Every structure is written in C-alpha cells, then in structure tokens.
C-alpha cells in the first residue's frame, strides 16, 4: 500500500533547519487542490516544509488557503475535493493513506489545535474523557496510563489535576485552549498544527498560550506549523515564515529576514497594514482591492490587480519562486522583488 519507500523521488528532502537524518515533520510538495464549482484551484502548487522540532508560521488573509493547507495535513477535506501533489508527515504520504494509517497519523503523528476551543470540545463530556479518548479508543494506552499522561500534560500546560473531572462549560476559553494543547500532545506527535489558536481568546490569554506553545514545542521536540493572520505573532514565535496569497506561497524565508526585508509586494503591504508598537504612527495602510475571485481562472500573478509595482509582465506570466541573492532560503514569487524598498539585494 505504502509506496513511498520504493520511489526515491518521493522521499522527502530534509528540511532547512531540521536535524540531519530525520525526515521533515511535514513536507508538502506542489499541492494543488480543487473544490467543486470553482474555476481556479484553491491551492495552487503549495510547497511547504516543517523540519523536525522546527516552528514555522503560515501567514495570510482569510481565504488565502492557509487553513485548507493545514487541514490537508490531517486529510480533513471538504467533500468533493480533488488533490494533486504530496503531503508527507514524518515520511509518510497522507494523501494515499488507508483508513487505518490515517487513524494512526491522527492519533500518533500529527495533531491539530483548533481556533475556538469552546466549539471544538464536546460540551457534554468531561475534560478527562476528551483528553484520553483518542489514545484509549485506539488502544494505544491503557486507561490508567492515559490518565497518568493526561495528568502530566495538564501540569505541563499549567492546569490543576482536578480539571479532568470538569465539564468544558466550567472552564474559561484560555483554560480550554490549554486543554486542547494537552490533548494534542497526548499521542506524542511529531507535528503540531495550530490553526489560529489564539484568535478566539482575549489578548492577555493569547500571549500566555503562545508562550506555552513555544515552551512545549521545545520540551517535546515537536514540529509546529502555526497558522495565523497575525504577523506580529508569526514574527514572535516562528523560525521561518510562509506568506500565502490566493492559494500560492508568495514568499518564504527566515522570519527575521522576511519581516525585515520583504521581497514580495503582498508581504510588504501586509506589514504596512499591521499596527505595531514600534512602527511610526500614520503609516498604517490598507491593501486596496479584493483577493481574486474563486470563480474566475486567473492569469499571471494573482496579486497583480492590487499591486503598485505591477507591469505588463505581471498580468501575463505567473512568477516563479526565486531566491534572494546571497540568501537561498528566502524566496519570493514576484517578477519585481528587487524593486521593493528596503531590498537592496546585497544583503
């Protein structure tokens, strides 16, 4: 069934920043996805890797495809979706797994932390049941072992041992998100996916949860894909960043480099539209226009209609990802990367 071992071409490359000789926690290559009734693919040739133990942020507006990308990793796809490309998690291709392998992936290899913990946790079951049900029902641990591990993890996320007896309605949103994180760590996964894990929380709780995620990632050696629309958060937590626009990776590179010297006009526009404490006032600029319509087949660069730097070339030819000079890890899919302000190209 699993053909990945026999085809060296399919073997995932080691991720930049990853430990040598271990497969990347996540390796997505040329992922294309179509939904029924859309003209253009919702994901169009996405390449993305998360090294073992690495933290990677995936940034973009809503509708850019970032949530779909993260959900694809657990094969949580809407009905009628067609996919091309490969999605390897710890060396195994998710898209070709059978039901048993998929269950193994979801319990032991990869786990997701969802946006709204209040909606994500069954309100009628006790927290303890929620934490242990996956490992218990798949016979990975005995009930006693599962309970013990749940206790350890609850302590690790800063909750007390009486929490398992409670119902979700008796905990705050922040506490529930900690429960969610503990639950995700139950199967000791190689990869954690966090889909806007702080959006539903208030600001102080957000900071706590982000700090906690960083801590735990280091402690358990888990790879983390952090999906967010919040650039500040992405900069704070991640080693590397992917910026997504209209189902494509617009720009990627080390977090520091991407935020300091954006090489894609979209990244720059995003940065300009983000209020930062250190940014001079008055520079906040909204991005004009709308993301491209899913019902129309686009030509050229999808950002061209909203781009100040767009030329004839941009509307006819789709830009390929090109590395920055002297910085091979920092790539952008733009014809005019070098024209961007603050990107002298001699870094």
């Amino acid at each position, binding site marked *: 069934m699993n053909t990945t071992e026999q085809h060296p071409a399919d073997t995932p490359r080691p991720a930049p920043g990853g430990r040598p000789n271990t497969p990347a926690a996540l390796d997505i290559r040329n992922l294309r996805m179509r939904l029924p009734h859309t003209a253009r693919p919702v994901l169009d040739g996405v390449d993305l890797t998360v090294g073992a133990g690495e933290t990677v942020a995936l940034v973009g507006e809503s509708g850019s495809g970032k949530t779909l990308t993260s959900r694809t990793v657990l094969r949580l796809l809407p009905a009628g979706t067609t996919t091309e490309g490969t999605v390897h998690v710890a060396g195994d291709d998710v898209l070709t797994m059978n039901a048993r392998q998929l269950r193994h992936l979801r319990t032991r290899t990869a786990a997701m932390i969802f946006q709204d913990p209040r909606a994500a946790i069954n*309100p009628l079951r006790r927290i303890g049941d929620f934490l242990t049900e996956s490992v218990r029902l798949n016979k990975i641990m005995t009930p006693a072992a599962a309970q013990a591990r749940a206790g350890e993890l609850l302590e690790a996320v800063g909750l007390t041992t009486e929490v398992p007896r409670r119902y979700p309605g008796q905990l705050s949103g922040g506490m529930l998100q900690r429960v969610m994180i503990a639950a995700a760590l139950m199967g000791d996964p190689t990869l954690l996916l966090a889909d806007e894990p702080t959006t539903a929380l208030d600001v102080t709780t957000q900071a706590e949860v982000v700090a906690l995620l960083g801590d735990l990632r280091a402690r358990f050696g888990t790879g983390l894909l952090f999906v967010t629309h919040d650039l500040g958060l992405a900069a704070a937590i991640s080693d590397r960043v992917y910026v997504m626009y209209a189902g494509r990776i617009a720009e990627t590179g080390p977090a520091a480099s991407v935020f300091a010297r954006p090489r894609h006009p979209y990244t720059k526009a995003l940065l300009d539209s983000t209020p930062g404490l250190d940014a001079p006032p008055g520079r906040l600029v909204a991005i004009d226009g709308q993301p491209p319509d899913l019902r129309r087949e686009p030509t050229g660069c999808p950002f061209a209609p909203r781009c100040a730097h767009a030329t004839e070339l941009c509307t006819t030819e789709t830009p390929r990802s090109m590395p920055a000079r002297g910085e091979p890890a920092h790539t952008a899919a733009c014809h005019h990367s070098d024209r961007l302000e603050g990107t002298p190209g001699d870094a």
Partner: protein
Amino acid sequence: MNFVRFAVRRLLEMAATLLGASFVVFGAMYLAPGNPASFLLGGRSASPAALAAIDRQYHLNDPFIEQYARWLGNILHGDFGRSIEYRTDVSHLLSSRLPTTLLLVGMALVVVVLLGLALGWAGAVRGGATDSAILVGTTFAIGTPAFVAAILLQGFLAVELGWFPSSGSGSGDGIAAMLWHLTLPAIALALYLVGMLARVTRSAMLEQLTSEHVAVARSRGIPERHVISRHVFRNALGAVLTTAGLIVSSLLVCTVLVETAFSVGGVGQLLELSSTTKDFPVVQAISLIIVALFMTVNLIIDLLLPVVDPRITLGTRATG
C-alpha cells in the same frame, strides 16, 4: 443543596398544576346542561328517591367548593368514587384493567424507543437513499392515526392472513398469550410515535454531525463508530429525552383507540365505554391518572436532563 431545592420546587409546581388539572376534571361536570344529578345518571331513568340518593351520595347540595375538596380528599386517599354503570368502586375497576394496559403501553414503548432511535440514527448516519426512504416512511407513520393503523393491521394481518389474533387481550391464558394478543395493538399504538421519534433523533443527530466538535473528534483519529455513538448520538440525546413526556402521554391516551379497535379489556377500553355511557366518575379518574402520569414523566425528565446535558443548570428548561 441545589438539586434538592430544585426538586422540591418542581414538585410544588407539579402539585399546583395537578390541582389545576383536577379542578378542570371536576368542574367539567358542572358545565353539563341540566342538573348534575341527572347528568350523573346519564339519561338512565330514576325515581325521585334514587335522585335523592345520588344527591346524598355525591353531596350535590353542598357548595361547589366543598364538593370539590371532598372529592379531592377522597382521591388522595385512593378513592376515586363509584362507577354509575358498574355500581362498583372506580379504583377496583381500574386495578383489574391496569395490568393489561401497562403491558400494552410497555410493549409499544419498547417498539417506539428501539425502532425510533434506530431509524433516526440510520437516516442521519447513512444518508442517501436510506434517509429518503426513512423520511417518506416516517411522513406516512406520522400521518396515520392510531385507530387507522389498528384497523388496517387487524384487517390484513389478523383477519386476512390470520397471523395474529384479531381481538381480545389473551389475559387468563398466561403471559405468552397476552404478548401474542397485544403485538398488533402495540404496533398500532407505536406507529405514530416511531415516526416522530425517528425524525427528532434524525434531525438532532444531523445537527451534531455538522458541528465543529465532531470534526475535531474525527481529526483526532477517533474511529467513526465511536464518533457517532460518543459524540453525535450522545449529544442528540437531550433533544430526544424532551419528547419522552409527550411519548408517554400519547401512548396512554391512544390506548382508548387501540384497545377499542382490538377489544382489549384495558383502561383505554374502559375510558371509551364510560365516556359513551356517560359514566363520569370513571372518565374523571382515568383523565386525572393520565394527566398525573404525564406530569410525573416530565418531572423525571426535568431532573434527568442536567445529568444528560451538564450545560443545563437545573430548572432552565422551559416545559414542553
């Protein structure tokens, strides 16, 4: 303690409602045209002496409120008065017929719960052609009155095909004979409620199937059958449970139709006989018992709901 206080409050509320119900049941007699004595005689001819005896027996010359208080006091002591038609205690009439009716209702309840939940489950989980078939089937089940179901079952399965006895309860021939005789009546009694419960279950489960926590459970590798039983069905139970009072009262009331159709000698048939012969004390007693049972079931559900759904703090459910 919170629970005890809530239980006591609900009990008091139920007592108040029951008091209102008993007032309706008792007062209805005084809405009848003519004087109560001749109404109680129900058109039977009687000498002036007999009329006077009725007056005395029912204290009809006392003020209304005194009569009501005496009647209510007697009922609280288990005395439902005397049947005019049978010239015997109503409680005696009832106790000899109650076992048959309870067995019938119990059988129907088993059918309703098993079949209703199973069909609702299948419709929600399987979808497609199964679901459409169940939808059409339940549409007809809901549109079929119990007595119509009884007549059709009797006409085809009992008389035409001879598979089941066409009348009687089989009491006196042992429990097996009773179960055998009551099979068709129980199905007739259950049909409408099977359709109703299947639909309630189906839509409650469909609502859960689209919820985020179910998607999350799947994303955590929980096997599908557990997702359905532990999350979808479990969370649909609250909605299902709120229909229990209606199910029980509907079963009890419809025994009047089904027992009449199949000539089953239970409480339902007694209600039919006594209402056509205007044996009012019997009608009063049966009405009150049905109302009281309905309220008791609803009370139990109110106390049970917070157990099934911890989000419901005691007493926040509106009745119904």
